[in-house]
């Protein structure tokens, strides 16, 4: 007879079987048994975040850096509801996390017991799948299934809600060794021969093709295949925000980011293209602009692991539901070398125009957010660090000015745009990234104040992360919209900050302040040299804008441009 174990022990045993080494979470009444069991398993390191939202972002950051499932834990009721933002963030960005929540006892469910919330109900629309486990004998299999679902196919968050009595109940523990076999879940989709043939014919016939590379190129591990196709066929590439890093920024075929704050040349190329190759991206409204006028003359090929994305926003000519890496392997042998010089030259001209407008060239003595971020890039680039950016102008400037050469080096909340993501996600990323790879946070003065409590988590874990606060005194991105579309009525966007240097000191974090561009290097060097968390406040111009910008609802090529210098 197999050994009897409690539900709580089974949870930990299963985590170990899944290769989990670090868990981010917060204890409470309804998950006490799990926390108690954890003390007997020193193999698993628990990180006590200061808020359950932080735990989910940390698990998410860990997952995005490693490609492995991140794990977060919380108690019932408020603990679990605090996780919702982090779960929704992971869902929108296809990040594999497993959240384990305690629940009131099975007998109390439905009776509005103390700290009872219908967590599977609340999280149903923001999880890839979720479970309420009511019998301890189901626990091991459910956990294995949850990890499998989280990491396979289009990855995403899975939540397991475990009532306290199930954590305490005992049963024989036999780890289910058989591979998961679910009747309604078959993530390995493949292209048909006919689809491949049609797509290839379009590719080889195209005069003005563009590859749109999304997060899927990273998730599928297809960055090499995408580049191979591009090089073979001389096809220019533009990436989504989450595709950044998948294609080296310095590669001559990489036009940079597309969309609302994308490169003008990339947007122009999309609008003029005769073929779009959409790889692992989902035509979000932030990348298409007005749908009716989006890339009007192109044929479109869309490849995605999630069939429900195909023809959802943009109607395409060839829709392929498959793993990108597998299909591109099928394609690449037959992609013909083509002379697309005319097309590449046209793009080069647009790029030339952009570089003349570049804010980095401005020499008016004003210290700008873009310059601070550019300088962080220059200072750190040889290390290829992981950058975790938050949400706002600084995020877009990071995407524009930080040149990512390696996959999984930009971690940011794209789909949900969750302010407060960066600091906790960086703590998670730090656990996932190799020791020698630096972790830098680029965060706004608004965003940092949403989750600044996690500074103490970083201290407690002696997390070697460097936090660059771009302090423009505003909720800058919202202010930008107010300036452009609301006659400069800055309703509730001016935001005060604490004295970050003093605050850092109070937390036991190294704190530095930079008010002039020439002091940047010294501060960055001090941060790099410091073992443990550092915080640098960059006090920058308050009224800068992020350009180019496609106003919401406008055609993709109708960008507001920076004036030429």
């Amino acid at each position, binding site marked *: 007879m197999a050994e009897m174990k409690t539900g709580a022990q089974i949870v930990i045993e299963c985590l170990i079987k899944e290769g989990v080494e670090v868990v981010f979470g917060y204890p409470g009444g309804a998950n006490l048994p799990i926390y108690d069991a954890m003390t007997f398993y020193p193999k698993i390191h628990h990180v006590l975040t200061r808020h359950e939202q932080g735990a989910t972002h940390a698990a998410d950051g860990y997952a995005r850096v490693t490609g492995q499932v991140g794990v977060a834990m919380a108690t019932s009721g408020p603990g679990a509801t605090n996780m919702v933002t982090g779960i929704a963030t992971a869902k929108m960005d296809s990040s594999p996390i497993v959240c384990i929540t305690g629940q009131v006892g099975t007998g109390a469910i439905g009776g509005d017991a103390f700290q009872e919330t219908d967590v599977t109900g609340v999280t*149903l*629309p923001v999880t890839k799948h979720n479970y309420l486990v009511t019998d301890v*004998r189901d626990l091991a299999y459910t956990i294995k299934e949850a990890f499998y679902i989280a990491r396979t196919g289009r990855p995403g968050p899975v939540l397991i809600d475990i009532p306290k009595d199930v954590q305490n109940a005992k049963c024989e523990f036999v780890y289910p060794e058989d591979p998961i076999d679910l*009747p309604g*879940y078959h993530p390995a989709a493949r292209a048909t021969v006919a689809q491949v043939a049609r797509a290839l014919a379009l590719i080889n016939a195209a005069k003005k093709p563009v590859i749109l590379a999304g997060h899927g190129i990273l998730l599928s591990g297809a960055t090499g295949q995408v580049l191979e196709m591009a090089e073979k066929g001389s096809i220019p590439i533009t990436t989504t925000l989450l595709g950044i890093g998948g294609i080296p920024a310095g590669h001559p075929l990489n036009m940079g980011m597309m969309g609302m704050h994308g490169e003008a040349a990339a947007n122009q190329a999309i609008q003029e293209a005769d073929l779009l190759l959409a790889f692992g991206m989902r035509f979000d409204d932030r990348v298409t602009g007005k749908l009716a006028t989006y890339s009007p003359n192109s044929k479109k090929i869309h490849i995605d692991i999630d069939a429900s994305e*195909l023809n959802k926003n943009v*109607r395409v000519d060839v829709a392929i539901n498959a793993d990108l890496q597998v299909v591109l392997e099928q394609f690449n042998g037959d992609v013909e070398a083509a002379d697309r010089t005319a097309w590449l030259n046209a793009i080069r001209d647009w790029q030339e125009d952009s570089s003349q407008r570049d804010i980095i060239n401005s020499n008016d003595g004003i210290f700008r957010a873009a310059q601070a971020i550019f300088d962080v890039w220059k200072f750190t680039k040889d290390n290829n660090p992981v950058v975790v950016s938050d949400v706002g102008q600084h995020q877009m400037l990071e995407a524009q000015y930080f040149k990512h050469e390696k996959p999984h080096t930009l971690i940011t909340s794209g789909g949900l745009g969750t302010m407060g993501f960066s600091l906790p996600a960086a703590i998670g990323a730090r656990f996932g990234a190799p020791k020698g790879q630096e972790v830098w946070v680029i965060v706004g003065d608004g965003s940092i104040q949403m989750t600044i409590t996690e500074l103490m988590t970083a201290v407690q874990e002696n997390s070697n992360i460097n936090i660059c606060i771009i302090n423009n005194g505003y909720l800058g991105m919202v202010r930008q919209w107010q300036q452009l579309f609301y006659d400069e009525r800055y309703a509730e966007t001016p935001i005060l900050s604490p004295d970050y240097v003093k605050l850092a000191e109070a937390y036991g974090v190294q704190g530095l302040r930079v008010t002039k561009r020439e002091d940047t290097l010294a501060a960055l060097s001090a941060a790099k040299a410091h073992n443990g968390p550092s915080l640098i406040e960059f006090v920058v111009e308050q009224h800068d804008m992020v350009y180019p910008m496609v106003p919401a609802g406008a055609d993709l090529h109708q960008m507001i441009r920076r004036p030429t210098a």
Partner: protein
Amino acid sequence: MKQTLIALVEDKPGVLNRVASLFRRRNFNIESLAVGHSETPGISRMTIVTDEEELLRRNVVRENLFRLINVIEVDDVTDQPTVVRETALIKVRANATKRAEIMNIADIYRARIVDVATESLIVEITGDADKINSMTDLLKPFGIIETARTGALAMTRGTVTPRDPASYAKYAAGNGKRSH
């Protein structure tokens, strides 16, 4: 033509909620949804009618449904030869003088009178939506007190099934990996 979907789903708590929640959050409209046991224990069968008509939109609905982990198979039978049936119970105002007239109408539609009271009748009718609507129109002048409809059930003609039952029989209740 309205979209008709047949879905085979795992018979587990909350699955109906998952399906309904999906339609709500994706802004798809359900015209009717009927759910009950299938030929395989542990697997339920749903017939869902949506108001989508265009093929690409219909595919998006189907793929979204299919994406739910507990959904085993989804077949869009809109364009397939299919038997579609719905049952309605219609309670009509009817005193002794009107009864014969109503029974006549019921006869024409091969409907049955399943309850007779002094001031009302219940008519039970089975057919496709058009047939039920058309009889309802004829009954309206008498005064309809209440109507209950099951929603459409659909089954493709011939031996074709959405998926060979043998392929999912192994997941039937009692065959699962779960301890119970």
